[in-house]
């Protein structure tokens, strides 16, 4: 077990370093960052001044080494635009996006797991067809369209929910649904497949044969085993959602990490973009690492693989 953990950990760190290198070099696609920074009305002298000020006149490798050395210590430098330490700004925005991601995940799980279970118990029944329809429709609908349609009905016509902001719980209802609906199909399919497999397994038949109540069999034996892959999928999807909340946060003017990312892209705030991509990647790496550990703990066969 220890060697497995260490091996996975080593890979995770290596991946993180690789991602940091890709992230850093990707930023230089835009050409001269000083020009990007100077803004619309800048002259040549402004730009030259900015180039010196931010150290863009140094060799790129020196800049990367310097950046990585500081990043490891949690210092991502100053945001060009916000004029604040990047780490502080990200910490300020992260809770909002985490909250959004969690609400979305809760919505997705409460919708998809029961439907997946019901669909598995009664394959090809009406409920299975409904679940399938929800899954297929969810996969085919652009999330921004869904979000704007909700805003039109719940926000403007019926005035049931606030349209923008992150001030109260009501602000999170529409964005959570819009974001969560997108991952519903995957979770539902996995739950259904897992349940069907488990329900046909020998130990469930044995349990039934022993005369245990169907409900007990279903929840105590079947669901508990079928849920394992769903948990790791959910962990991974949570990581995806943090990165994918750009569109939703933009529409609902939620001041989270996704919105910050989109703003930073538009104003070419390079240290901020680098840090956000890196933080989200590391978040994802940590989540997958934890999911791996969980699986290994639950299923000893994995450890030796």
């Amino acid at each position, binding site marked *: 077990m220890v060697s497995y953990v260490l091996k996975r950990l080593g*890979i995770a760190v*290596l*991946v*993180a370093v*690789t*991602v940091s290198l*890709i*992230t850093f070099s*990707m*930023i230089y*696609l*835009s050409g001269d960052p000083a020009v990007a920074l100077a803004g619309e009305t800048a002259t040549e002298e402004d730009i030259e001044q900015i180039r010196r000020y931010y150290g863009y006149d140094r060799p790129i490798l020196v800049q990367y080494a310097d950046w990585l050395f500081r990043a490891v210590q949690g210092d991502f430098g100053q945001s060009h635009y916000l004029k604040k330490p990047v780490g502080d700004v990200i910490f300020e925005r992260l809770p909002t996006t985490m909250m959004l991601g969690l609400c979305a995940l809760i919505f997705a799980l409460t919708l998809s797991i029961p439907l997946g279970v019901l669909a598995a118990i009664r*394959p090809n029944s009406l409920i299975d067809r409904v679940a399938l329809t929800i899954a*297929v*429709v969810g*996969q*085919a*609908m*652009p*999330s*921004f*369209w869904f979000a*704007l349609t909700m805003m*039109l009905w719940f926000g*403007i016509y019926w005035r049931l929910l606030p349209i923008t902001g992150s001030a109260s719980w009501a602000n999170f209802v529409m964005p959570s649904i819009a974001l969560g609906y997108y991952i519903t199909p995957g979770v539902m*399919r996995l739950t*259904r*497949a897992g349940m*069907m497999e488990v329900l046909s397994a020998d130990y469930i038949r044995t349990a039934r044969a022993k005369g245990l109540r169907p409900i007990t069999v279903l929840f105590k034996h079947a669901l508990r085993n079928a849920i394992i892959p769903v948990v790791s999928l959910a962990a991974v999807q949570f990581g*995806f959602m*943090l*990165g*994918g909340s*750009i*569109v939703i946060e*933009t529409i609902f003017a939620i001041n989270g990490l*996704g919105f910050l*990312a*989109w703003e930073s*892209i*538009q104003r*070419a705030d390079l240290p901020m*973009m680098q840090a*956000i*991509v890196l933080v*989200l*990647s*590391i978040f*994802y*790496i940590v989540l*997958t690492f934890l999911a791996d550990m969980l699986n290994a703990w639950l299923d000893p066969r994995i450890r030796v693989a």
Partner: protein
Amino acid sequence: MAVVDTSAVDARAAQITEPSPGALLRRRIFGHAGLMIGVTVLAVIFLMALLAPWISPHDPFDQILDRKLIPPIWTDSPKATWVHPLGTDQLGRDYLSRLFWGARISLLIGFAAMLISGVIGTTIGVLAGYFGGKVDMVANFIITTRLSMPVVLVALAVVSMIGSSLTVVIWVLGLLIWDRFAVVMRSATMQVRNLDFVAAAQALGCSTPRIILTEILPNVANHLIVVATIEMAHAILLEAALSFLGLGVQPPEPSWGLMISEAKGLMFFDAWLIAIPGTALFLLVLSINLMGDGVRDVTAPDGRS
């Protein structure tokens, strides 16, 4: 429903006559309602795209500013006219013609991005699955690195920095979404390579590329098709999201994602403007997904998963 009924009859017939495997497969294909619907809708969209130059009532680029925003014929607006059955857009271009031509671009994006990602992902996956060991470790590392980078964020950042065009969008998406190909192909190849006929080919002294091309690939083709449909749909939706943020295909090219994006400003007032391309996009993605599900069901007859 007629299709389903036939299948029931066929199933009964099958028990009596014990038909050949090929005939069984044909029956499963034609008996699968989702697959048939998906293929039919996709065929219609494909024909629209193919025949766009001949069936379009107008030039999709021909703008007449004084005739802009004519509503479609089913609205009771006095401006509605059969000259423009689906109305005209913000620049007075015929919406029906743009819809036909837009089918070309949306299909092209989906197909080309899927092709690029398919080549990358399949190469990585098959090599990893076939050789195992060190190759597998490296492949796993590459896949994990790719998975840990948030797709939407990276795509936006790259496109915003190098400027967006049809080609850029296709390449960026293609280079980003190969992960599923790699993961699925890897595990499928692992299963196939241990089978007898591969060992037989190896014993006969066949070259490795030949074994991969003639023995492995044909036997994992069904998985390949399923992933291909998922990624094609994925690419089309991602393009729509990029277009929504203004970084997708550039006008005046009429991609459906772009039509939605151009119409979004009026969605609270002229809902038809976004509903038409939105529905088209929805049907396209839906049909591709149905087809993918169908292929999976038909090739893995133990129930869909």
